[in-house]
């Protein structure tokens, strides 16, 4: 009889926590901007280095004039429900004033869950050390100036500069 030596392999699982997240917010509806903000704030609270880059219609979320009045689309949104869970008729969503009313209702419900308005949310992110950037190309396209944007915006940068901020092997880029 032959004895064989069995090599025992012990695989050590090393945890590699995320060190940096770079979020891109390219859409300007209420839910898109909040998705970015919640994820950014959550990352900051976990001690993860956080950069948020607002581009295209996402700029609505950092433009002083519009940031606290974001809308959610009441047409072309199949997930939209009326109170009570009945599907929201698209025809109704197209009537003047409906989108505004629905959006303000949504914002009220969010406030009830202690979700802050956008300006305050941006402040919370920067208070924790997160950084907010605006996309140069989009800012030029929409003919905006630095002073049109929230004071929490650190700088207007190019996409190349944004990628430079995304260095490190435990970095994730998230597009919302």
């Amino acid at each position, binding site marked *: 009889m032959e004895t064989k030596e069995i090599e025992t392999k012990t695989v050590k699982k090393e945890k590699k926590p995320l060190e940096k997240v770079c979020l891109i917010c390219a859409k300007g509806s209420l839910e898109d901007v909040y998705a970015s903000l919640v994820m950014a*704030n959550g990352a900051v609270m976990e001690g993860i280095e956080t950069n948020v880059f607002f581009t295209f219609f996402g700029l609505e979320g950092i433009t002083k004039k519009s940031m606290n009045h974001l809308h959610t689309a009441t047409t072309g949104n199949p997930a939209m429900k009326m109170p009570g869970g009945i599907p929201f008729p698209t025809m109704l969503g197209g009537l003047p004033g409906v989108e505004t009313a629905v959006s303000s209702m949504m914002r009220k419900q969010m406030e009830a869950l*202690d*979700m802050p308005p956008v300006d*305050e949310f941006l402040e919370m992110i920067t*208070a*924790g050390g997160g950084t907010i950037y605006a996309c140069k190309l989009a800012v030029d396209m929409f003919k905006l100036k630095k002073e049109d944007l929230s004071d929490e915006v650190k700088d207007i940068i190019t996409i190349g500069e944004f990628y430079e901020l995304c260095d490190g092997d435990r970095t994730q880029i998230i597009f919302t």
Partner: protein
Amino acid sequence: MSVKTIAGKEVNVSEEGYLEDMSQWNEEIANEIATEIGIELTDKHFEVINYLREKTAAKEALTIRKVGKSGIVDIKGLYKLFPKGPLKFSSKIAGIPKPTSCI
């Protein structure tokens, strides 16, 4: 759930080291958990900790926004007191469960 001795007292803790019964907490335990995290507690820390314990006892959901509006410390200050974990570390030190809030 497991039993751990912190500051000479046996307490029930979760897998991540949060106290499971907030009544087992005392200031020495707070200090020892804080040292483990790397925070030296000051009176200001205890003001926040006591606020968190009060709100938890009243079954109120905690967010950093709420702490920021408590009048004790603003959000920036909260991050300074508990770097890299304003709600997580403060809750752990306060002997209350791990925060379930996303904000």
